[in-house]
Every structure is written in C-alpha cells, then in structure tokens.
C-alpha cells in the first residue's frame, strides 16, 4: 500500500511538471502575422451594432456604464478601462443617446449631461469637447470632465481623465 501511494504521488508530481512546462514561450511574445495574434484590427471605426468588441481598436467602455452617473464616484476608483457593452443595451437604457459620430453607437454612446467614469475610453471625441492644453499636455475639456487623446492598440482613442 505504501509503495502504491508513493508511486501515485510521484506520477502526479510528474504530470504537474510536464503540464507546467512551456518550452515554446515564443508564442507568448511579440505578435503579428505568423507570430500569433489575431488582433490586427487596424484603424478604429464603428457602425456595426451587432459586431461585438472586435469592431474597433480598444475595449470600449459601455454606454450603460457611462450613463450611470450615480456610480461615477465608485467608478473613479476603478483602475482602468471598463470592458463591456452590447450597444443594443445602450439604446434600451438611454432614451436620447447623443452619438459622437455615426460610429459611436458601437463604441459607447453617452447621455447628454452625464459624466463618464474616469478611465472610460472612446474611439471618437465626445460632442461639446474643446481643446484645452494644460501643463504642456493636450486635453479636451468637456462638460464636467476632461478627455486625453492617446494612441494604443493600433488606433487613437480618448480617455476620460481626472480634473
């Protein structure tokens, strides 16, 4: 019995080591083309409400999150972007969505007068925002919040920032 249990333990240990070993770390590395990432989405554009998060450059914040102004304070403590969003839900929850552009419906529409949470990102500048540089950094001042243009994930996007 003792011999059997020791052999069993050894076999389990061997399985662990075998599975945990990943000699082909190559696949984890730098990506593109053959190197292993399907994520080439190119320029950010919008317009397909049903296409899913693949339709665009970044993980867009959802309108549903953006319009819940009561949650803004709590949302500010969130570390970064909130991934979410069937745009269809946005349309149901917001009676009068104001779209940044025809493509914005796929990327997080927001209700007029609401303040999106810090960290929310949009592929297009929201309506009513004007360029307002501060300390040598280009921001856009919107109604009650600021957005900063940035480039990442193969496209430009606008991130809601504190201040």
């Amino acid at each position: 019995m003792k011999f059997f249990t020791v052999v069993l333990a050894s076999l389990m240990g061997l399985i662990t080591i075998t599975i945990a070993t990943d000699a082909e770390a190559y696949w984890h590395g730098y990506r593109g083309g053959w190197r292993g990432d399907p994520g080439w989405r190119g320029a950010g554009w919008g317009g397909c409400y049903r296409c899913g998060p693949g339709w665009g450059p970044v993980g867009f914040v959802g309108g549903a999150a953006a319009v819940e102004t009561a949650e803004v304070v709590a949302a500010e403590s969130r570390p970064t972007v909130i991934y979410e969003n069937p745009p269809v839900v946005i349309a149901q929850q917001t009676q009068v969505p104001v779209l940044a552009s025809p493509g914005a419906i796929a990327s997080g529409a927001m209700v007029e007068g609401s303040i999106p949470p810090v960290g929310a990102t949009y592929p297009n500048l929201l309506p009513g925002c004007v360029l307002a540089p501060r300390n040598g950094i280009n921001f856009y001042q919107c109604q009650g919040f600021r957005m900063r243009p940035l480039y990442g994930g193969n496209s430009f996007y606008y991130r809601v920032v504190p201040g």
Partner: protein
Amino acid sequence: MRLFPRFLLTLLVSLSFLGAALAQTNSSKRPESSPRPTLPKNIKPIEPEALSLIKKMTQTLGAAKTIQFESIVQSEFPSIDGIPVIYTTAANIALQRPNKFNVVVRGDGPSNEILFNGKKLFAYSPEKNLVAMSESPNSIDAAAQFAYDKAGIFFPGDDLVLSNPYEHLTAGLTDAFITGKSKLIGGVETYSIVMAGRGLQGQIWIGVKDHLPYMASWIYLGDKAHPRTTLVYKNWKIDSLISPDRFNSNRFAKAIVTEFAQPNTPLN
C-alpha cells in the same frame, strides 16, 4: 491502522498535485489541435523542401535594403452572437534598413500612419489631426518591439521585415509541407506551403521566381473560436528608391501632439 492515515495523507498530497496540474491546464487556456494521425514512415512532419522555400523567402526579404509592399488583411472576430465577422484593413508599408519604416493603414474608417524615422516613433491620424510621438530605440527590430510594448502596435508583414524573419517563422514549427503550385494567387506562380505550430496553423504562398510572399492565411488556435486571418501581399518593390519624404515627420507638424499608451494601462 497506522498505515491508513498515512495513506490518506499521501493521497491528499497526490490530489493536490493533480489539482495544481489541472489548474495550470485551465489557466493556460490554449487549446491545441487534436492529435493528428501518425504519419507514414516515409513522410516527415517538417519537409526540408518546405523549409528551403521559407528560407529563400526570408533571405530575399532579409537582404533587401528597402522593401515596399501593400497588404490587405481580413481578420475574423466574433459578433455578439458569436458569429465570425470579417474585418478588412489595408496597409502600405515602406522600410529602409537599417532604421526607418512607415506604415499607412486604411480601414473602413479613419486611417492611421506609423512612422519610425530612426530616432522617434510617430502615430498620426489625418482625420483626427493627432500625432503621438516618443523617443525610440534606433533599429527597426528594436523600434518594432518598442512600439508593441509601448502601445500594442503591430502591422501586417512586420514578422517578415525584421532582421531575421526565418527565425520568427520557424520557431515552434511542428509541421511544414508543400501542397503544390498555384497560378491563382498574386498574379504570379506560387508555391503553397502549409505551416503549423502549437499556437497556429496555416498556409503561405511564396513566389516561384521572386521568392516573395503573396498570401498567408493563419488560424489562431490559442483563441477558442479559432479565428482566421488572411493577408494578401502585393505590389512588392525590393531595393527601389524610397523618397526621403516618406520618412519625414514634418508633415505632422500641425497636428495636436499626444502620447502612446495602451488602452488598459494607467497613465503616468
């Protein structure tokens, strides 16, 4: 009686090992293709002739002082229903060794441009009138790696234009074989070569005479939906003169300056 608790203890240890192993399996989330049937003895998983063609292609690209080509990329992503949707972008790429590249990407929306002029990395959008800029390492390989690390930037064909594309294409390769010739791809006669590794499988069409790639199509096994991306390469120009204006950043001078940042990373 004394043996029984010891057995239980050992069994618990064994189960914990098994649990750890299973957890590792789940966390990797990298489904692989199902085990293939055993090949007949006279067939090698990696055919030397296939490797030879890949080597010729990469030598042709690796030896070029300048490279220009266009690429049409079609990538599948699931809709909210889970149905694959194909997205198409086009890219125009120019590279001048040792330290310059420019990539203009057009989609069905705003276009983007990436420029590495040997010192700085730029991303520019004419529609948004924005330019992101950053100091950059001074070689093409290092700048491409920097662009990826800094902002998740990669572009179609970037795996072909680095200094050692053969190494990139063959690392982790488990299978490679030639399916035959085709006259239907790229307007030239091509060899069709199947390639497979742990993370992806696909096919590449390489020109019989010029050894340049004209199409590639990859299935990504690391994604449970196994999406396919197909890249068409065309209008190759090897060692042709590229206008210095192509690598001149002055055309971005009137754009609003900003920075690179991954969408999901905190800002400085």
